[in-house]
């Protein structure tokens, strides 16, 4: 068995602010520890992983012998920062695995910005070609872990001979049936652990493959040890923010706090009354029930105007701004309260799907009318 990941494994955000860096590091450590325990063989570095800082990734590499690979991410001296490839022996066969990160101007600029010029991206095709030259004659099967998007995966598969399988990433695709670029297969396993891909290969006179995407739904039981480790992470994150001056130990329960929307209620009583019956009004409670009320990745969608000016902040943990209140959808309305000029804006579904993403709510866009009925507080 070979276990691999094609990047953006550890982190979700391009910018990791000072207020969340500690919890982001805890999460990265949790994931590195768990993936190490299941025997991960190679992980391509994604730009979102880099947002944690190269030194943090190197620390994980050192602490867990975490197998980052990337053939075209180099330091200021043009030296690869991580291993370019690894070779693993399986059933008497050598499997070569190398990593590639995309070099679009957007990605290259992002990498430079995120790493404060400590790292840059070199030509993926040249890097892959050089790796393949070294692997030729030494391996029986080659896996390229790429983080550049499917279009570029086609290019690398067609222009660099000898790659058997491209496991792609970055553009968050799900490929049930692998793309076939000549003799190279291209796959990707969706987003946020919804699927695990399994490519079963027979190395005979010709190589034959069978790909399966396993849906990791509620019917897949939790591993008790990993579940316990996640609970410890939740507790560790809570202890970061649940401290005097910030958090529940010094603040009353959400139900006892006058919410920010009380200001809206004076003129929009009917709408607020209706809102109180919706799931938006219970959004924070759902986190409390799962000890996730301090997890920044959850609070983004369960509080009002997360980390925006005068919005909910990780540092202040303002209970009057929990739940999905008026300003979550209608925008900051401080000026409207002062001048009372008409301000209501029609909320577009594009805003809703920033939280009701396809992985969380697969039919949200399709069922737009139905879901809007659930929160209807307009005439």
């Amino acid at each position, binding site marked *: *068995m*070979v*276990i*691999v*990941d*094609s*990047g*953006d*494994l*550890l982190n*979700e955000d391009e910018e990791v602010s000072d207020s969340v860096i500690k919890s*982001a590091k805890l*999460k*990265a450590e949790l*994931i590195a520890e768990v993936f190490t325990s299941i025997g991960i063989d190679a992980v391509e570095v994604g730009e*979102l992983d880099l947002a944690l800082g190269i030194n943090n990734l190197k620390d994980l590499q050192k602490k867990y012998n975490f197998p980052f690979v990337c053939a075209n991410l180099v330091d200021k001296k043009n030296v690869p920062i991580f291993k370019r490839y690894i070779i693993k022996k*399986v*059933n*008497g*066969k050598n*499997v070569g695995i190398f990593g590639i990160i995309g070099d679009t101007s957007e990605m290259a600029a992002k990498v430079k910005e995120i790493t404060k010029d400590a790292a840059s991206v070199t030509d993926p095709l040249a890097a892959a070609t050089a790796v393949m030259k070294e692997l030729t004659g030494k391996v*029986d*099967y080659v*896996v390229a872990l790429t983080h550049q998007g499917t279009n570029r995966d086609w290019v690398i598969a067609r222009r660099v001979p000898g790659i058997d*399988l491209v*496991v*792609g*990433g*970055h553009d968050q695709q799900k490929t049930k049936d692998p793309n076939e670029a000549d003799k190279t297969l291209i*796959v*990707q*396993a*969706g*987003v*946020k*652990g919804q*699927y*695990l*891909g*399994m*490519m*079963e*290969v*027979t*190395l*005979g*006179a010709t190589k034959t493959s069978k790909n399966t995407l396993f849906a990791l739904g509620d019917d897949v039981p939790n591993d008790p040890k990993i579940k316990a480790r*996640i609970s410890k*992470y939740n507790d560790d994150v809570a202890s970061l923010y649940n401290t005097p001056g910030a958090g529940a130990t010094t603040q009353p329960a959400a139900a006892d706090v006058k919410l920010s929307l009380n200001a809206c209620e004076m003129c929009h009583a009917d709408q607020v009354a209706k809102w109180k019956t919706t799931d938006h009004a219970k*959004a924070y409670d*759902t*986190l409390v*029930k*799962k000890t*996730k009320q301090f*997890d920044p*990745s*959850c609070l983004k969608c*369960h509080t009002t105007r997360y980390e925006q000016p005068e919005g909910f902040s990780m540092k202040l943990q303002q209970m009057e701004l929990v739940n999905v209140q008026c300003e979550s959808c209608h925008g900051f309305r401080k000026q409207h309260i002062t001048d009372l000029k008409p301000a209501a804006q029609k909320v577009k579904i594009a805003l809703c799907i920033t939280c009701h993403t396809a992985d*969380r709510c697969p039919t949200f866009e399709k069922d737009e009318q139905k879901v809007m009925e659930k929160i209807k507080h307009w005439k």
Partner: protein
Amino acid sequence: MKRVFCLFLLILGTVCYASLSVSGASPQAADNAKLTIAYSSNLLGYTEPCG
């Protein structure tokens, strides 16, 4: 005795030829080794549902 030795040589030769035939062919063709690659992508730091 000579006949026995010749027979031995014949058998040895046959075995050598047979093994040469095997090694001359693709080693992959000989064993049909199985390989499973488990892969994930774009986990984005996901651990469990928020609510």
